[in-house]
């Protein structure tokens, strides 16, 4: 008799912990791409922190500006020192909500994500589409969106304004694992 209670309790508990809880990645990937006729600039970041709370569908993402790796060190230097001022604003942050989160399953489903994105100390509302799926225990969220450099008060000197696009394409791939502890 006692063992049945234990079994029921375990089942119930595991059901709760599977459906509801926090999913996290510390090694999320994001990149951005600037295309101009003069040159293409790409930077990649493999240290994105992203946390999804499955009970509410909220998502919080933190990105270290200095973790963006460029092909050329001079680009990386200018990006950090002059454009993003990463000593003053070391992180980019997104806080928001994955709408229709309940429909997450093994298939790759489109979702709408709304929230506030903060880059270079400037916060903007954003609404974007992503693709979400559940693989084994992980929740995978992929997508891309366009960021306008001027929206975030990032000043590009006129000398290099032809080398840097006004609209930058940001791509992300976030593979969240269930958070234990």
């Amino acid at each position, binding site marked *: 008799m006692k063992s049945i209670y234990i079994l029921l309790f375990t089942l119930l508990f595991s059901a709760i912990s599977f459906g509801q809880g926090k999913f996290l990645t*510390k*090694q999320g*990937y994001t990149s951005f791409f600037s295309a101009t006729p003069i040159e293409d600039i790409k930077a*990649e970041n*493999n*240290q994105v*922190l992203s946390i999804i709370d499955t009970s509410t569908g909220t998502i919080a993402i*933190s990105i*270290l500006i*200095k*973790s963006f*790796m460029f092909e*050329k*060190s*001079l680009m*990386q230097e200018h990006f*950090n020192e002059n454009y993003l001022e*990463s*000593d003053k604003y*070391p*992180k980019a942050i997104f806080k928001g909500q994955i709408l229709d989160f309940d429909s997450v399953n093994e298939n790759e489903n489109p979702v709408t994500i709304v929230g506030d994105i903060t880059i270079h100390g400037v916060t903007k509302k954003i609404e974007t589409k992503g693709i979400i799926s559940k693989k084994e225990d992980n929740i995978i969220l992929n997508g891309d969106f366009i960021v306008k450099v001027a929206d975030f008060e990032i000043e590009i000197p006129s000398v290099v304004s032809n080398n840097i696009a006004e609209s930058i394409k940001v791509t992300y*791939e976030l*593979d969240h694992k269930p958070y234990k*502890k």
Partner: protein
Amino acid sequence: MKSKTTNAINISILLMILIGILIYIKVYNKPFANISESKPNVSIESKELIDSFFNNENEANSKFLEQIIQVRGLITEITSGKNGNNIITLGDKNAIGGVTCHLSSEESTKTNNLKIGQQINIKGICTGYLLDVILVKCVIIE
């Protein structure tokens, strides 16, 4: 006579432009710091590094960001990132924060003999603090 001086001026202007272009190319293609051959700016225990960020992130940022840091600690996790490079986490198993060291691709081949709980020295560039202190372009010292 006159044409000789103009020639000389023309040649020197041309030379200056050439030198300018060469300097520009050199600066434009300036290489990244070679971590394995550079001396670390800071040598520190993993616990001390985590504590400095945990206690005062701003102060730690100004002290450690973009510095080559050699950190010593116990391995708590060895994983592999999306790009195939290995990631070694240093710290205390019972503590929440650690030091995540993202290895360069050449160094990723050297992790086979490493074990969880082993003491190790790793050198890399600090890019900041999220849940962990993050070092990139890491090389294993021993």
